[in-house]
């Protein structure tokens, strides 16, 4: 491990919940990116827990402007760096929560990708608006109970499938797109490195469980992240130059575990019936078949 890798650029003392997957994600990402990095962030847990005045957990230059514009702010940063002759050797990373990426910040992201900025956009996905207290996002998976997609007499919880954000970004034809997961640190780091080395826009979709919002133990965060991959709920892949039809799965579980193993660990899915789970299993199976993942255990 290099010296740079030892630097903790996302400092302790940030106020994320105990066991928050975002902490692990950002720490590891910044280890790869190193100190010559400028980051932008969206409003969301990451910002609220790390920038409360007069403290900041950031060891690198950081700018937070609003919830929906991390990518647009980053575009300004990137172009300014180039114009001022300071871009050489400097990474620009735009962070966004799933809310700031899939929903309210999606247009700014799409515009940034389309214009071809040399920016790595990293979405840290905890599958809901956590900062405001677990509301539905288009990243929220089918069946999850959130405060705006509550389970109830007339509701199963979230009724829409998860928006396929990585595929959508890749469809822009950008040079590098990948999905990653905090349980798979090496895979994550490799992808961060590739993304940063890419000239032009790269999109990274990082799966990071939230014990508070998913309602699991604070110690379960990594295990649940891993189960998402082992069950095929979240597939780790890369897409080069937007060639969606040739995606490269980077982590293939030998045998896929049943999705129930994943779902039953989280109280957001606690209300699902056997039939609901079977339905989800079927969808995951179909997706995994498409991705060429092994059959289920």
């Amino acid at each position, binding site marked *: 491990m290099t010296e740079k890798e030892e630097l903790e650029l996302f400092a302790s003392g940030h106020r994320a*919940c105990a066991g*928050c997957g975002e902490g692990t994600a950002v720490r590891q990402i910044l280890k790869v990116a190193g100190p010559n990095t400028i980051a932008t962030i969206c409003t969301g847990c990451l910002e*609220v827990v790390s920038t409360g005045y007069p403290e900041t957990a950031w060891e690198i230059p950081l700018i937070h402007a609003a919830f929906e514009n991390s990518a647009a702010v980053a575009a300004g940063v990137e172009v300014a760096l180039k114009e001022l002759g300071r871009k050489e050797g400097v990474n620009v990373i735009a962070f966004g929560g799933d809310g700031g990426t899939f929903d309210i910040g999606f247009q700014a992201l799409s515009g940034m990708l389309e214009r071809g900025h040399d920016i790595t956009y990293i979405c840290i996905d905890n599958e809901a608006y956590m900062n405001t207290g677990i509301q539905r996002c288009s990243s929220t998976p089918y069946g999850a109970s959130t405060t705006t997609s509550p389970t109830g007499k007339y509701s199963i919880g979230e009724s829409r499938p998860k928006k396929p954000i990585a595929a959508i970004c890749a469809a822009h034809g950008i040079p590098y797109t990948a999905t990653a997961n905090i349980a798979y640190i090496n895979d994550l780091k490799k992808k961060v490195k590739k993304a940063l080395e890419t000239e032009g826009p790269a999109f990274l979709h990082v799966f990071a469980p939230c*014990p508070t919002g998913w309602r699991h133990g604070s110690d379960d965060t990594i295990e649940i992240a891993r189960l998402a991959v082992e069950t095929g709920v979240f597939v780790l892949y890369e897409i080069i130059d937007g060639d969606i039809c040739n995606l490269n799965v980077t982590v293939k579980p030998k045998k896929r575990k049943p999705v129930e193993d994943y779902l039953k660990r989280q109280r957001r899915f606690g209300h699902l019936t056997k039939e609901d789970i079977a339905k989800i299993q079927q969808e995951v199976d179909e997706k995994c078949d498409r991705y060429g993942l092994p059959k289920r255990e």
Partner: protein
Amino acid sequence: MYEVRFHGRGGQGAVTAANTLADAAFREGKDVQAFPMFGVERRGAPVNAFTRIDEERIDIKTQIYEPDAVVVLDASLLDVVDVTNGLKPGGILILNSSKEPGSFDYGDAKVYTVDATSIAVDNRLGTETNPIVNTAILGAYSRVVGNVKLESIFEAITMNVPVKVENNQKAAKEAYEKVKGV
């Protein structure tokens, strides 16, 4: 006007305790307010919640700086939080602790203790590592402060704590009985 501050950790139910106490007093015809610390604290972080109770209509909308009573849901907070900060001279301090009140020295504050954790665990409220003590401690409050009846707290629990109502009520009752220092 009687003002109470609750100390807990994010996720431990301090806010529900404040709400339930207010609701109980409301059921006795009093005017009430209950509110959380206005902040962004995350699960695990020390948090506060507040209750105001008055016979008269409560107009005031400020935060509470000098409570009449302080209720601490988690004794491990005593090391990290100044729980008696602003407590009125001679005010009441109710601690969730298995220790005796005498083992705490908080100046002229009147200290009461109740082992709400054990009571909660016995009544299967929360888990062993994460017991939910907020209803138990309200039983102790009722006994110690006396401005809200235990029955009202039972009623308020029905509204504010939708799961395991009976266990919660039982826990409140036990705490009412077992609180030390009265």
